[in-house]
């Protein structure tokens, strides 16, 4: 359940929250040059290390994935798979069991109320986990960390609860499994600390 945090978050809290949401957004977007750049440059690994350090977690042991394998794995896990996808990447679906259901509609209305709209170029559903996380970064960055935290707890955390195990089990890239496990742990830690 989403409740307001007890205290006003510190700058560090906000920075951690922002970084976590950035990592979620970056991980579950369709893999493109930006992700490859971050993988090759080590920026992603460094960001994970920073987040892990902040939350007293172990950083994910990311293999250096073959790019073609990573792309195919993304499709297999989240888009279309001959064996059935592991995780429909829609947070409302994880909550309601239907697409464009009541949770997705509440989410869309709430984003709108916070002045956040989808760009026309976005070609997936509004409650795609990457889009929702990116919306969260805007909230966190825009001095609305309480809203970002509520988003993390109310909408993103259920998606990880539903699908993290399946993603870890079916991932062959060596990227999505470890990242999902790490991000789920980070969400738990951030929300736990926010409530403590």
């Amino acid at each position, binding site marked *: 359940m*989403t409740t*307001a945090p007890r205290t006003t978050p*510190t700058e*560090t*809290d906000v*920075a*951690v929250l922002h970084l976590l949401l950035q990592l979620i*957004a970056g991980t579950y*977007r369709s*893999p493109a040059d*930006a992700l490859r*750049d*971050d993988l090759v440059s080590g920026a992603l690994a*460094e*960001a994970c290390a*920073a987040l892990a*350090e902040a*939350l007293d977690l172990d950083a994910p042991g990311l293999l250096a994935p073959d790019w*073609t394998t990573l*792309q*195919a794995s993304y*499709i297999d896990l989240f888009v*279309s*798979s*001959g*064996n*059935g996808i592991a995780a*429909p990447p*829609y947070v409302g679906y*994880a909550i309601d069991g*239907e*697409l*464009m259901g*009541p*949770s997705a*509609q*509440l*989410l*869309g*209305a709430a984003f*709108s*109320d*916070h*002045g956040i*709209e989808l*760009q026309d170029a976005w070609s997936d559903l509004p409650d795609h986990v*990457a*889009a929702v*996380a*990116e919306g969260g970064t*805007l909230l966190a960055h*825009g001095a609305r960390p*309480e*809203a970002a*935290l*509520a988003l993390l707890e*109310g909408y993103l955390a*259920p998606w990880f609860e*539903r699908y993290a195990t*399946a993603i870890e089990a079916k991932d062959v890239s060596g990227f999505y499994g470890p990242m999902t496990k790490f991000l789920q742990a980070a969400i738990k830690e951030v929300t736990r600390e926010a409530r403590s």
Partner: protein
Amino acid sequence: MKLGRRDFIKLSCATVGALAVGSTAKAQLFPGGFPNPFRPPPGKWFEGDVTTSYSYCEMCFWKCGMKVSVEGGKVRKVDGYLENPKSRGMLCPRGQAAPATTYDPDRLKKPLIRVEGSERGAGQYREASWDEAFDYIAEKMFAIRDEHGTESVAFMGHGTGDEWFASYLPGAWGTPNAAKPSVSLCTAPRETASVYTFGRGIAGHEQIDWDETDYIVLIGHHIGEDTHNTQLQQFAQALTRGAKLVVVDPRFSVAAAKAKDWLPIKPATDTALLLAWINVLIEEEIYDAEYVEKYTLGFEQLAEHAAQYTPEWAEAITEIPADTIRRIAREMAAHAPRAVLPVGRHVVWYGHDDSHRMRALYFVNILLGNYGMPGGYYLCDAPIVDTFPAPELPLAPAAGGCGGGPVEVGDSPFRPSVDRGKFFGTATSVQEFIEPMITGEPYPVKGLFAYGVNIFHSIPMVERTKEALRHLDLYVAIDILPMEHVMWADVILPECTFLERHDDLNLVAHKTPFIQARFPAVEPMYDSKPAWWIARELGIKLGLGEYFPWENIEEYLDRRLSSIGSSLEAMAEQGTIVRRGRPYIADWERLNRNPFDTPSGQLEFYSERFAEAGLDPLPVFIDPMEGPSGYYRLLYGRSPVHTFARTHNNAVLMEMDSENSVWLNTREAERLGVSHREYVYLENQDGVVEGPVRANVTERIRQDCVYITHGYGHKAPLMKLANGRGASDTHLQTRYDLDPYSGGAGLRNNWVRIVPGAPDPQHKSIAQLVRERSQA
């Protein structure tokens, strides 16, 4: 929490924004956070801001007009509307379930390109932009063209958008190898027989004058199981009105349960029965002599020919008593011309026999004097609406369709289609495209587009089809769902569902011809696109832009509608434009016009054109293919809540009918030791095994055949509701017999034996699967 020196690490991957801060932020309703997503939303959807738009249904190809209600950006409900002649205010379960397909989480979402080096069927893909996908396809098509010619790319299509992918784009590209399974795997014999008898095709909606008929004889026609909405409505009303019904079927079908007579005919002998009825009508002089004299050609040859087909001769073949044959013929004659033998839709049964059977069926109707008369077959033509002005296509479309034959190709600089010479008819034959992909004869087919066609659940000899796919240089699948064959494609292009798109106008030949339009109720989900857009954009990539001179579909539709004094805006308000028809011969005679477009201008019993081609000019009975001892002829039909193999991942429809069963006669079951609802396997004459499938032990079927409904037995794990339920008739069809007249594939020439003792697959309920699907 602590964050050290790396506080300000920037990740490029998350900075490519999907979202943007809007400039008009409202007062914040949730200033502290977000609403609890687990709280149910207030109110009912229909109490909200509901908008409606017109469409026509695509859940089957009856294409009923519908109104679509949208609230909160989501389709909430669909309904028929009274002004539309195909729905008359009602929809069937499939239509009602349409939103469940739009919101099916298993839908295809983005263009995908098979990972280089991976095998077809391995299912390894990467995401691509539409532009990249089109570039990839175009490059492959140009390479095929340069090495083998444009004809070496084939197209197959099914559904409203098939006009773009089985007619227009192939015509623009320059290949005659474009086909629709709705022809050679469905209607081909009836169309060929109709064109060469009546000089007109059978309209896509089977022009039976149900409202006026008093006596109905159904031959293998599964009304009530194929659920063509208004046909079923009118059929039920006719029976309510007191019309008499006779059903000829090896199986006691739903319709048979309503009949005064059920004639359990031996499978594959229907033509013999029809010839015997022709014999009785003529020999007893109870045919409509005045009608025959006025409107037909070749009666004398028919009478002489039919003399041999006595009821006693037919009894020995059909196992229907001669007395019954005579009695029914006399009853038909007594009710003529308001007695009718309706034409069915799926008529590719036994191959060599099929066009003969259809001609014989038409001949009985003509002898009853009902063609173009009240209570028989009405006459109809599609409304005329101009095409969008564009250069003439290099090659006339050759695929044909349910509602008539193809355009005659005539002289052409292109090679004829790869199936030419195998049969008489001019429409292409989809199953005959497969072998040339493997053998390269008469010339190679190296590229294939499959638009909306489930080629593993429609074309017989599935393993041959898979082998053919392995030989291709390019395989493109355009679909809504990840059917098994789709995951073999080099490029997968996701089409949006009909609720999310415009389509071309639907021009319906009907007693009251009408035009109906489809408007998108909601925006396409994901990165899916409509067929018209895909065809146009690909056409432009292929250098064929001159054939697609419209900027968008709105311009295209508006221009077409302007030719009849309407507009897209007007259609948005009314959905359907209904015209007056000329359903009876008298309506044509008043205008001094002849409706029969045969060379003689008459209804032709004797076909000179068949004779010139070395074919039988009059229908004959051909002994059917026989099967091995201990096997049953495999018959198949429809589930009333499913369409082909297209709807078996729809949660609403699967909840109603989630697996098929094999109908097995009670005495055969006793002999085999099979009990009712026990799971068995089906093994065909070539050793192909399907199942487990439940046994439906029943008196409602003859002992020499078994029956399953089509479309089940999917082998597509990605379709979580459809996968692995029941048995596939198509996979058991490892041989077929080609109709030399129409090119139809006679599919009921396969036999199966029952293998008891299959394990209970312990299928989960659909509701459980739906829950699990959301929980991975």
